[in-house]
């Protein structure tokens, strides 16, 4: 409270009116302070003339970058912990990529070595294969197994009759395989399996014809059976009723044909029973 004398002596201070008469005087509130640096608005650049378009492009880009850098989301990202995870992931990824690349590079060397090794092995196998298929080697191995080359003239060549022989050949596939008698003791036991045992076989023309056809398709008889013609001519000729006649006309080695083994895909696959003595196209002429 102003003392009366001082109040009477001091001049009256009047605040200048900033508002229009008749309006209540108010003071503009101060802006609320928020945490963080004070944001200053960028001064608005005046519009440039068209002639300065290039420079404005760079500036525009800079502005855009600046805007991005001040974006809320980026700010939140940087201020938060997410960026640590992102950078860590990227770093790990780079390291992994590098490791993978190193492994790949290391495998190049190994692949080269492997390729060279395979090339060597291929060549060695080719050489070995060629040596193993040498004729004298095959003959020696065959001789050890009791086989031998068929004597010249001991082969019988038969005329193939595609319809008849194919039918009989197919029919013979359903027939049970009988083991042969004496001739099967030779190394050509396989051969006698297809020929059939004379004792075991029924004397029907059909069943007897089938083994004969399969036997007669073989042109090249295993030599082992050629060794046993004398021992079992009866067995071989009685294999089939009709073929017995025809095979008996073969002078050289009847059993070598009839007990011949696996149809060797011979070109002359005929059944010997077609006609007595005529089934063989040409026996050893002597």
């Amino acid at each position, binding site marked *: 409270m102003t003392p009366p004398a001082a109040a009477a002596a001091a001049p009256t201070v009047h605040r200048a009116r900033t508002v229009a008469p008749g309006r209540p005087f108010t003071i503009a509130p101060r802006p609320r302070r928020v945490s963080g640096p004070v944001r200053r608005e960028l001064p608005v650049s005046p519009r440039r003339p068209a002639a300065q378009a290039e420079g404005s492009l760079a500036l525009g880009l800079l502005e855009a970058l600046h805007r991005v850098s001040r974006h809320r989301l980026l700010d939140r990202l940087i201020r938060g912990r997410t960026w640590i995870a992102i950078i860590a992931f990227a770093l790990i990824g780079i390291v992994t990529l590098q490791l993978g690349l190193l492994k790949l590079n290391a495998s190049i060397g190994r692949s080269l070595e492997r390729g060279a090794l395979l090339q060597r092995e291929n*060549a060695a196998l080719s050489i070995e294969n060629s040596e193993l298929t040498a004729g004298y080697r095959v003959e020696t191995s065959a001789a050890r197994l009791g086989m031998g080359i068929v004597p010249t003239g001991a082969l019988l060549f038969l005329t193939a009759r595609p319809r008849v022989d194919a039918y009989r050949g197919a029919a013979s596939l359903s027939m049970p395989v009988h083991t042969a008698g004496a001739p099967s003791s030779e190394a050509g036991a396989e051969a006698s399996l297809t020929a059939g045992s004379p004792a075991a076989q029924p004397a029907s023309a059909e069943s007897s014809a089938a083994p004969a056809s399969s036997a007669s398709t073989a042109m090249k008889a295993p030599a082992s059976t050629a060794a046993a013609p004398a021992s079992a001519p009866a067995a071989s000729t009685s294999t089939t009723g009709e073929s017995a006649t025809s095979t008996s006309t073969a002078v050289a080695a009847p059993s070598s044909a009839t007990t011949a083994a696996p149809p060797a895909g011979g070109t002359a696959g005929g059944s010997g029973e077609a006609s007595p003595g005529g089934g063989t196209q040409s026996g050893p002429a002597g």
Partner: protein
Amino acid sequence: MAVAQRRIGTIFGLFFILLVVAAGRTVYLGVLRGGPLRKAASNQQLTNEPVTAQRGLIMDRNGVDLAVSEPAQDISADPYLITDPLGTAERLAPMLKQTQATLLRKLSEHAGFVYLERALPAGQAQAVLALKIPGVTGTAVMRRVYPRGPLAAQVLGFVGTEGKGLAGIEYSRDSLLRGRPGRRRVVSDAIGQPVSITETQPMVPGKTLSLTLDANIQQRSEDVLSAVARVFNPKDATALVMDPRTGAILAVANWPQANPNDPGAAPAGALQDRAVGFDYEPGSTFKSVTVSGALQQGLITPSTPFNIPNQIHVADRTIHDDTEHPEETLTTSQILARSSNVGAIKIGLLEGAEHFNSWVHQFGFGEATGVDLPGEEQGVTLPLDHYSGSSMGNLPIGQGELVTPMQMATAYSAIANGGILRPAHIVRAVAGQLAPLPAGHRIISAATAAELRHMLEGVLAPGGTASEVSIPGYQLAGKTGTASKIDPATGEYSQSAYVASFIGFAPASNPRLLCAVVVDEPQSGSVFGGTVAAPAFGQIMSFALPYLGIPPG
């Protein structure tokens, strides 16, 4: 607060200085020293390696490999870098299969480069290089291996140390077999492991050649020739087996043998393929040409009778038959079966010199057959204008002209296949693609050929000059030949040097296999074609016919 800010600023400044130093070092290394460092790096890390092309395989008609390339290394050394030549020689000698003295000599040379071993198989080479002897290095090459050894050596030929074909098929088809080497750039890391490989020039491997040869028939033919050599001790011998229908060559055997794995050790002349490179006077085997011409011209038939004395005079020359006999009547068939010189000359005179000469050329004599084998001779025929009065006294019986075994086989193929003269061929396929069959042309009619085949059966029938040769079940046909050779010392026909030959085919009615055997100067025992060459023909055919599943007929 100010202290903290100062410290922060100090640390920042420190890091900034480090950054500047790093940047400066980067500029120094990358810009100022960049050039020399790049060069040093490329020397250490970058290598341009040649990639050796693998030479193509050669195989027979059944896929049996006859010539294979395997990786190998040329082991070389820089003697200047070898610190202990004696020790190095001692270590390497057993591995390189050389004597220590030889290796020591090489390692002691005053040179910067010396080969220690060429084309060492890769496995053995790796063992050598694994010793990591300073100065010893390896260069990747390809080594040619012939797994069957001397089989078809003269046909296959061999390859030199630089991988180039030097003889035979290896030579004539070198461009196909060789391929093209490549180059690659390899970047290696600090420990020498490749980290980047770039093919700067792709390698092209050689093409695979498939021949018409059959390795088994080839082996058998060579075995038979070896047996002939043991019995008759000739100068050399050759045998040809072919399919007369197509001209496909199934075997070309030569004696003496050679091993293409070691061509340097071969006897002199052993590497020559005598089937195409040997010129000889064919003798009586040429009579088939004489008779063919007269038959084709209709001058004679197989049963035309001729009066055959023991000798005949042609100009100033007297020619005898091999066996003395009284004057007799022989048919054309008998003339061929008994190989009558007088009869053949009479037939030739009936033809006349001009027609005879024409037939000689029609059958392909005097020029190369066109077979795809290198080193083919074309033989020598007498030009018509060089015929003298007595020329028709020797030419029709196969003297006075030079032919090769291939020419004779090709001519007989025309008789066997019904009259088509077709060049023989040995290359069946290239890189899996079948080679086209050479074209042939007709020289005699099928009827004439059939008549001639029938007549040639008589040669191997009783009374023929090769009657002792037979193959049970098969009808054979052919002609013997026993031709005198010129004695180089006298210029006259020798009384002791002969060429014994036999050319035949089977089955006679439908020939599928032809074989020609020529034995040069058999020394011991007989010299006749019927006793020297014909049995060899029989042995080869008795194997080949059933082997190929050729029925008797």
